């Protein structure tokens, strides 16, 4: 009970801080707009995916990308907390490190999820053809994807002292995960080099993007893996990351 309350308290704090940061919420519209409108317009003629319009293909990928970038970015909250001393207040509280990690992770996941939902609504508004009700099915899936990604951000941040380093490392991880995930172009098929097909299999986001397409595009999309396989792989990835995250937070001192 104590632990649950601790998790809830830390969750609420992250969400409050996120919502109060209006600038970030507004700026978050810009990137997906560029991808879905500008990038899609330029590339739709180059990349042909049988049975699906390129913008349609891109849309779940950009949701995945939004989740990835926001999730990784949220790790910054750990660095802020260390920098501004608030981390000490949390670490010395009678709450287990597992709960501290979970509270922060769920709070940051909620924030990333909200960003994802914004892009979802946005896609609907600019007229990408999909059934808006799929949001209901996509939501739990988006959460599942986010948990592992937020955990990566938190784990890195727990080891790192400065904002600059965090920014650099983040870019280093974000872009490969994004490019190899199949968000922008298919990473399977004869025309794709073998090394990339292999690397893509190591990218947790690839399973997320594939699952998102299955849910959002329906039968029009031929998945790389059956949905349940994707879900299982993502879930295992999440659990491993939560384990590592708890360990990383346990060794944190300030």
């Amino acid at each position, binding site marked *: 009970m104590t632990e649950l309350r601790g998790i809830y308290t830390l969750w609420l704090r992250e969400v409050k*801080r996120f919502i109060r940061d209006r600038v970030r919420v507004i700026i978050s519209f810009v990137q997906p707009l560029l991808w879905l409108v500008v990038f899609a317009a330029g590339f739709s003629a180059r990349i042909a995916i049988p049975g699906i319009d390129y913008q349609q293909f891109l849309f779940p990928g950009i949701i995945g990308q939004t989740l990835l970038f926001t999730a990784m970015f949220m790790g910054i909250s750990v660095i802020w907390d260390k920098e501004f001393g608030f981390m000490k207040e*949390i670490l010395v509280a009678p709450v287990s490190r597992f709960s501290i990690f979970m509270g922060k992770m769920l709070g940051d996941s909620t924030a990333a999820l909200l960003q994802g939902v914004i892009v979802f609504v946005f896609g609907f508004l600019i007229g990408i053809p999909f059934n808006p009700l799929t949001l209901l099915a996509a939501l739990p899936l988006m959460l599942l994807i986010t948990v592992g990604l937020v955990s990566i951000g938190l784990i890195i941040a727990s080891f790192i002292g400065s904002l600059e380093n965090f920014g650099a490392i983040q870019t280093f991880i974000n872009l490969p995960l994004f490019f190899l995930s199949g968000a922008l172009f298919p990473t399977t098929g004869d025309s794709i080099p073998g090394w990339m097909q292999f690397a893509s299999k190591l990218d947790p986001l690839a399973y997320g993007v594939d699952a998102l397409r299955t849910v959002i595009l329906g039968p029009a999309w031929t998945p790389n893996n059956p949905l349940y396989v994707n879900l299982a792989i993502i879930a295992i990835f999440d659990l491993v990351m939560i384990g590592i995250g708890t360990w990383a937070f346990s060794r944190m001192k300030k």
Partner: protein
Amino acid sequence: MSPVINTSQLTKAYNAFKAVDDLNISVDKGEIFGLLGPNGAGKTTTVSMLCTILKPTSGSATVDGHDIVKESSKVRKSIGIVFQDPSVDDRLTGRENLLMHANLYSVPVSMQRDRIAKVLKLVELEDRADDLLRTYSGGMRRRLEIGRGLIHQPKVLFLDEPTVGLDPQTRDHIWRYIKDLKEANEITVVLTTHYMDEADRLSDRIAIMDHGKIDVLDTPQRLKETLEGDVVDIKSNDNKVLQELLATWLGFVNQRIEKDSLKVTVPNGKTVMPRIVELANQNNLYIESIVLREPNLEDVFLHYTGGSIRDDTTKELHGLSAIHRRAIR
């Protein structure tokens, strides 16, 4: 009565360097225990171990009867801390910070409103409670942190340099809260400071700490009394020469030059003063002023540590940078 805090050979080493070296202290229930020492003495390290943030390299300690390593979560429930550096969330309001703390420490929901209101009243922040912390001054944040440390009604409250970087008026306020607190509750306070006046005014007992060790531990009164005698403060045109003369001709051993004055500790100040003046005259030294006074805590400190706490310029810098850090938040 068993002590609330007890340490036994408590040590924290960083490689070969011992930040806290074989510490044996016991703090009684209900007292304000002052840990006085210059920057780098090991005060924060001591407090961090007692608060279970740092693991001791060797030795052990109990807080409220719980072992700080084996029963760290029980220790955490029993203590409140005001850290040396700021530790509030400045994007939340004062009330939200307090509420979050109450929840992290499992204060029953039915009591939260009441406790928060009480604490806000104590630290005089009722009318600013719903403003974001980033709009608070350094002193207001400090007061909020002290209030926060009390929300869960801890048995022991640790205050690590609670008034560094604050203006005299705010310091005075904070000192009053701490005094009141002790009178009103059955709380034990461990206070670290490098300010003599703070330690003197608040502490029931003072431990003077330097280089990770306790040099002496007693009540402020008795500490001053141990320096039997009087202190004579002399300002002359050449303190160094005067010091040598006094040592050679009057046999004074307990002398120190500090800034522009020579301080001499003697058993009977009244009778030696004329002789000091006479000796100076005979040697063509000019005495600007000569003052007789009782020993203060600063003299005690110098006596035991052999160094002046004021000479340590880094400390003032530390105070300034703390103000600066508070100001930019």
